[in-house]
């Protein structure tokens, strides 16, 4: 199986706090892999390292066999890693259409002169056509003129995923995609993630708290606690691992 992402001994410290301590993780092509762990375990920090927002203190991150440490976040996105955020980060005052259109831009090469004097008209038309297609396929076209910040929560989540898809990623990182969703919506999201994985040929790495979703969807699970990997394996293996139970439920103190 082709390897897409590999973290080797990745650590990051903020001052004296080891947010991540020697994390090893790999994701193979076409997989859906989940990272779980209690609050503050370092899951989002791991995402921020992968996408270049933080630079790890030590260790390595390889994407398709190439180290992506010390690269600009925008360059990492151009290489094919797209993400969503735990607290939705849309371009709130822009329309749904513009949100996706902006993300389309990275695949096209124009500069300020060609774009100002509309010498890139062909590209621009193409971008708009692609945006329309993508919104259509994600069932968001009817919202195209709405201001992104005014949409219902669930739609905003889907728009954020659509925006990530617009960068035509190979690897999609989803940071708590089901946060704030009810069981019905979570079920829909589960099938939606599978659907886009097949449709767009994606590899998915996700952080999630909803165990239903995680157990249902992921081929492999990594469990992090206090920055350390405490378990990995299939849903069943992880569920029965005493360390995981301890991390989530606490250990009983026998007097």
């Amino acid at each position: 199986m082709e390897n897409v992402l590999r973290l080797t001994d990745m650590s990051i410290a903020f001052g004296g706090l080891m947010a991540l301590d020697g994390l090893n993780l790999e994701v193979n092509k076409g997989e859906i892999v989940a990272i779980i762990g209690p609050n503050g375990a370092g899951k989002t920090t791991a995402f921020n390292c992968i996408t270049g927002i933080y630079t790890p203190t030590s260790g390595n991150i390889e994407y398709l066999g190439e180290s992506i440490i010390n690269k600009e976040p925008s360059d990492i996105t151009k290489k094919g890693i797209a993400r969503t955020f735990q607290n939705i980060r849309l371009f709130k005052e822009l329309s749904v259409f513009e949100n996706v259109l902006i993300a389309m831009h990275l695949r096209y090469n124009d500069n300020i002169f060609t774009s100002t004097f509309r010498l890139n008209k062909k590209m621009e038309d193409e971008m708009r056509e692609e945006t329309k297609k993508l919104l259509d396929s994600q069932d968001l076209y009817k919202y195209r003129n709405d201001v992104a910040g005014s949409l219902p929560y669930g739609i905003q989540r889907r728009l954020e995923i659509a925006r990530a898809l617009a960068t035509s990623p190979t690897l999609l990182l989803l940071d708590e995609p089901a946060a704030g969703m009810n069981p019905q919506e979570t079920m829909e999201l589960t099938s939606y993630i599978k659907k886009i994985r097949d449709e767009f040929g994606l590899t998915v790495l996700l952080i999630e708290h909803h165990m239903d979703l995680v157990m249902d969807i992921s081929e492999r699970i990594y469990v992090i606690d206090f920055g350390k990997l405490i378990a990995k394996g299939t849903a069943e293996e992880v569920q029965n691992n005493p360390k995981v139970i301890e991390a989530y439920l606490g250990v009983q103190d026998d007097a």
Partner: protein
Amino acid sequence: MNKLNFKEKTNINLLMYLAIIVVSVTILIFLDMNKFQYNYVISIIEKSLVYAVVALSMNIVTGFTGLFSLGQAGFMALGAYTTAILTIPIASRPNVYYMNGILPALENAIVPIPVALILGGVVAGVFAALIGIPILRLKSDYLAIATLGFSEIIRAVIASPMMDKITNGSYGLKSIPGFKSSLECFAYSLICIVIMILIINSSTGRDFKAVREDEIAARAVGINLFKTKELSFVVSSFFTGIGGGLLAMFMRSIDSKTFQITLTYDILLIVVLGGIGSITGSIVGAFFVTAGKELLRFFDEPLIIGGVQIPLFKPGFRMVIFSILLMIVVLFFRKGLLGGKELSFNKLMKVRRKKNLDEPGGNA
């Protein structure tokens, strides 16, 4: 069908803007023909046009990219001095530099006005590019302070004795060729404004807006934060420089005091009043503020009612009234007169149509 609708919309707006331009040109031609009678009005219009250019350029960086920059006066000074030095007629140069003489290299350096304006923009742009590298890593208020400081440094350097042979130090420059007619001023301003509007509405402009909305999300969709900010800052400063050149032509004589911090505040006022992030807001705001300050001159004249002189009416009172008006605008239109939106004829017409429909038996 949607596509057709979209095209119709753009066409109506374009036609209306063309109509406005034609009407403005007609009015300006009329005013130019009666120059002596309308001298005052013409100068207000010219000043408004120049301020509209600078306000819109400030809006690119502040309103559309979300970088709070207060360096406007400095970049205007760079543009103004470049334009002035390169356009003052050679014959009058000994008169201008009567105290310290002129640098031999500049003695015969003269270029046509449009070229001088563009060079003024280029000089401002180059300086912006250089200082942008360190300071664009700063955020919000820190950036404002850094740009403010830069602007004051430029002013100090221009006035310093070291620069006597180039900028004429604290004596300033005069005999700058002015606008031959208000149409000339209108043409330069219009070209700048149209190009800036094209930039804002292009794919590059969309990147600017993405950075304004959310820097982290912008990076996550492949926008290089630093390059985009730098680009916006340079483009904005380029047009600010041209605006400075236009101001020099409008005033015909400049010195370093022209470009004090108050000039930046004047521009900031226009941008905030018109609406941060609104193109039409900046343009309307420029006319509103410039004309407003002049029309209120009435309050500066002594007022005598029934033989009693009202004590408040003396020079300076108009600025009090003006400030009160500003406070009212800020209180009631917190986001400026246009609040990030654009004046659009489609919307105006839509409102009218709706009203017609609402009227009983209005539109059956």
